[in-house]
């Protein structure tokens, strides 16, 4: 029982209660399923809040640790090892938050096979929280791979016209990346005779040339997930085809698994390799920022634009992480949260309008602000947050990231890259304005678009948000303002852990 009542165990596995409950709800009773899932997700969120209250930011060690031997036999030393620290606490909260928001957003959007949808969603939550909390590499890997399965189904069953293609592509790309990581994990397990991350970090001493290989194996897995340029080509497909709730979780949390992986594993486990890889990773990040922003601008499909903007945003995260200084890393982590909140919200909003119009083509939209003022305003706030307007969350993250990157460039962390990487990346700020404003203008400004007339003709005139939809989006909007105006609590949560992490690196 002690095992089951660990708060972190509960955060991860409580959704399974919902899964079991759902199995016994008859197929026809869709509302009961929705409510069950929502309540379970809300309770999980509550548990994560409870975890937050137990969390002491000043402590750099893992907290609320649950550690039991799992497979300790025949040369194996695998533990059920959970723990939370400043690097992961926010991401856990983000996951539990976005899960119930997504479920609420799928209330009317998913009418077919509701039971399976909800089951997959809860399973996905299990996997995501598991990834953030697992401190044993093997356990981590299991959760990591496991997240693919429900997402695969969510895209493949409830997605758009090319869903099967997108789902397969998603699955294969991410699997292709992570499976090499498995080998690296096994190598580490053999090397250290343990899979426990803290123990491996404490042990250290991996020869540098091997570190390089391991770093690459891990980085490949994470970079595909992030996705870093040029490994991003699965993302637009997956986003465009995924159902709204899927896109939200995909953008909001799943991509963070990759960036989180860099922070959690690549930096402390392979410090020398991380330091020598920093300029290259930063270069890829910078290219991603610019490339993603430019390509976003040329999209005709709203979701694709947002998807490519993720490439750009996550470039910022990566840039921050590989700045290898507290500003950059903390900014990167905060930017993960920000991206989850903002892009998650954008996908939610796009989903809300898509539900009414069934098209995502810009050219059919226009002047929506006039008929949907609330929607327009929230969309505006979200867009601004996404493009990093000061006062909203996006800015705080981007600024600290760029600040960190500039410092890294000045202090030689980027070697040949210098401050140029930061300077070029900062251009992304301008380019973000270009594509975000383009999107906002095309959808909400200008004369009324064709789609408005069309909707009217079909007897379904476009309506403004209803209360459920506002409830779905409100927490995210509140977060945007909160992080934007008063980010101190967020930084304070992670600062000691980040400082500790950066302190381990053999910086030049």
């Amino acid at each position: 029982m002690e095992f089951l009542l660990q708060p972190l165990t509960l955060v991860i596995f409580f959704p399974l209660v919902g899964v079991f409950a759902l199995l016994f709800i008859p197929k026809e009773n869709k509302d009961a399923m929705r409510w069950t899932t929502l309540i379970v997700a809300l309770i999980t969120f509550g548990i994560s809040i409870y975890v937050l209250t137990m969390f002491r930011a000043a402590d750099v060690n893992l907290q609320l640790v649950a550690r039991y031997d799992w497979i300790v036999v025949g040369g194996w030393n695998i533990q059920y090892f959970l723990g939370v620290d400043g690097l992961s606490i926010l991401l856990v909260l983000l996951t539990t938050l976005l899960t119930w928001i997504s479920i609420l957003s799928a209330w009317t959007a998913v009418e077919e096979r509701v039971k399976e949808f909800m089951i997959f969603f809860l399973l996905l939550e299990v996997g995501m929280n598991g990834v953030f909390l697992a401190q044993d590499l093997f356990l981590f890997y299991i959760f990591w791979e496991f997240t693919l399965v429900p997402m695969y189904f969510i895209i493949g069953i409830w997605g758009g016209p090319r869903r099967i293609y997108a789902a397969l592509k998603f699955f294969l790309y991410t699997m292709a990346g992570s499976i090499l990581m498995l080998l690296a994990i096994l190598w580490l397990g053999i090397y250290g005779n343990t899979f426990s991350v803290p123990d491996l970090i404490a042990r250290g001493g991996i020869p540098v040339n091997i570190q390089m290989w391991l770093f690459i194996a891990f980085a490949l897995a994470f970079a595909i997930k992030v996705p870093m340029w040029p490994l991003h080509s699965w993302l637009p497909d997956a986003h465009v085809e995924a159902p709204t709730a899927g896109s939200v979780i995909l953008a909001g949390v799943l991509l963070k698994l990759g960036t989180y992986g860099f922070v959690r594993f690549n930096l402390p486990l392979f410090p020398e390799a991380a330091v020598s890889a920093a300029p290259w990773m930063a270069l890829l990040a910078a290219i991603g920022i610019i490339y993603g922003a430019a390509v976003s601008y040329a999209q005709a499909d709203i979701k694709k634009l947002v998807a490519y903007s993720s490439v750009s945003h996550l470039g910022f995260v990566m840039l921050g992480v590989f700045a290898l200084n507290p500003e950059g890393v903390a900014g990167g982590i905060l930017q993960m949260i920000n991206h989850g909140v903002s892009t998650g919200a954008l996908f939610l909003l796009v989903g809300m309008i898509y539900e009414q119009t069934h098209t995502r083509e810009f050219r059919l939209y226009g002047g929506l602000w006039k008929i949907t003022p609330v929607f327009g305003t929230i969309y505006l706030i979200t867009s601004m947050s996404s493009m990093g307007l000061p006062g909203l969350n996006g800015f705080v993250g981007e600024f600290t990231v760029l600040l960190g990157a500039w410092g890294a460039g000045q202090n030689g962390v980027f070697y040949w890259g210098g401050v140029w990487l930061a300077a070029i990346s900062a251009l992304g700020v301008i380019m973000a304005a270009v594509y975000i404003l383009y999107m906002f203008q095309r959808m909400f400004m200008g004369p009324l678009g064709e789609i408005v007339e069309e909707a009217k003709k079909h007897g379904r005139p476009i309506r403004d948000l209803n209360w459920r939809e506002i409830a779905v989006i409100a927490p995210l909007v509140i977060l945007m303002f909160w992080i934007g105006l008063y980010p101190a609590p967020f930084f304070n949560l992670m600062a000691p852990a980040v400082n500790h992490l950066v302190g381990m690196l053999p910086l030049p």
Partner: protein
Amino acid sequence: MTFSDFTTILPVAILAVWACALLVVDLFIPKDRKGVTALLAALGLAISLGYTLSQIGDERLGFSGMVALDGFSIFLNALILVCGLLGVALAYDYLKRMNIERGEYYVLLLFSSIGAMLMAQAADLIIIFLALELLSIPLYVLSAFARSNVSSEEAGLKYFLLGAFSSGFLVYGIALIFGAAHTTNLYAILAAASASTVSPLLAFGAALVLVGFGFKIAAVPFHMWTPDAYQGAPTAVTAFMSSSAKIAGFAALLRVFITAFSPLAVNMTDVLWGLSALTMVVGNIIAITQTDIKRMLAYSSIAHAGYILMAFVPYGNAAVAPVSVAAGLFYLIVYAITNFGAWGVVIAVERTEGKGLAISDYSGLAKNHPALAAAMSIFMVSLIGFPPTLGLVGKVYLFRAVIDGGFVVLAVIGVLTSIISAFYYLRVVVNMYMRDGEPSIRREFWLDFTWGALAFLTVFLSLIPQTLFAWASSALMKLF
């Protein structure tokens, strides 16, 4: 012969007597009640299994060193007997449905199991050869069991011709080993081989023996019979032989190589490496374009032979060999469970006259039969090697052994081919979940029980693999 000799092969002996008795009893069972034969066969297997388990901890040689009783053999015998039980369970309804229900089926299945068990216990090349034949001949017959079906006959003939062909190589290989070591006893061969520098004759013989086993386990390029035989044979037979024969083949291969040929590692490691890599690559790649589920699973089974073969590659490294053999054994369990489960689902969906076997026939399964679809998904995911299934644990174990042995490139090939395998396994899932269709399936208690239980085990055991790990690791310790 002493009683002690006899007890070393007690489960085998019991099963042999039971099989002979069943042959007679079957004559008195009316044609429409052959289910009784099935139950009796299962009873025999169960009794034998009971005795097998009672032998745990026992460890000796028997019949002048011709058979060995040790953790390894007990482990594998138990596994083979479980496979036999599952084979009976799957056949029970299937034969009736396909109108090929005859008592000989179960008798032959028992005899084949006897052969398989003897392979696990054999410590002499003669026994290995004879056991292999005893394993194979019933399988030839079983493959052609649906005589009304041309494919079944074709499967039987091809399997037989190529099987006999490979036997020729095996015998020749044994002949050369005999020529080099002047004995057929594995331990004596080891002594002879270690005494001097490696005789090329011995290496030549070992290579041919490897070829013979390679045929049995369907390693590329000795795999060509597999897809045809698996597709043509009645599905219940395919399920049985894809597990049982493979387990037996690996059992013998392991014992021969580790007991007798460890000094040959310098020659054989590269060969095994190549076989393993080739098998993984070819099996997985050809599987991609299959449209028939049985054929697809056949190639999948080839590919898995490649994965298991990986465990053999570091066999000459004394420090790693225990781990790698344990990994191989563990994967055999994983493979047996998952594979039987998948075939169980295939049997549930199959209809008479070869309908219901295309992968497209699985469209819409999830909507109408969610449990079956979920089970199949679990099996497919496990075959890919994804959490939370045994497949992942098994593969991880294998890769670890391989990395431990220093064969990182092989491990990389292993993981890359796993990605390729995701293509075709997921196609089944895609059809079940993401396409519409109206498949009709067969519900029957033992069938449902089989796939249901196996699906459960596939997930459940992956969460607590400790016990299985412990078994697998202890199973090999006794070998040395």
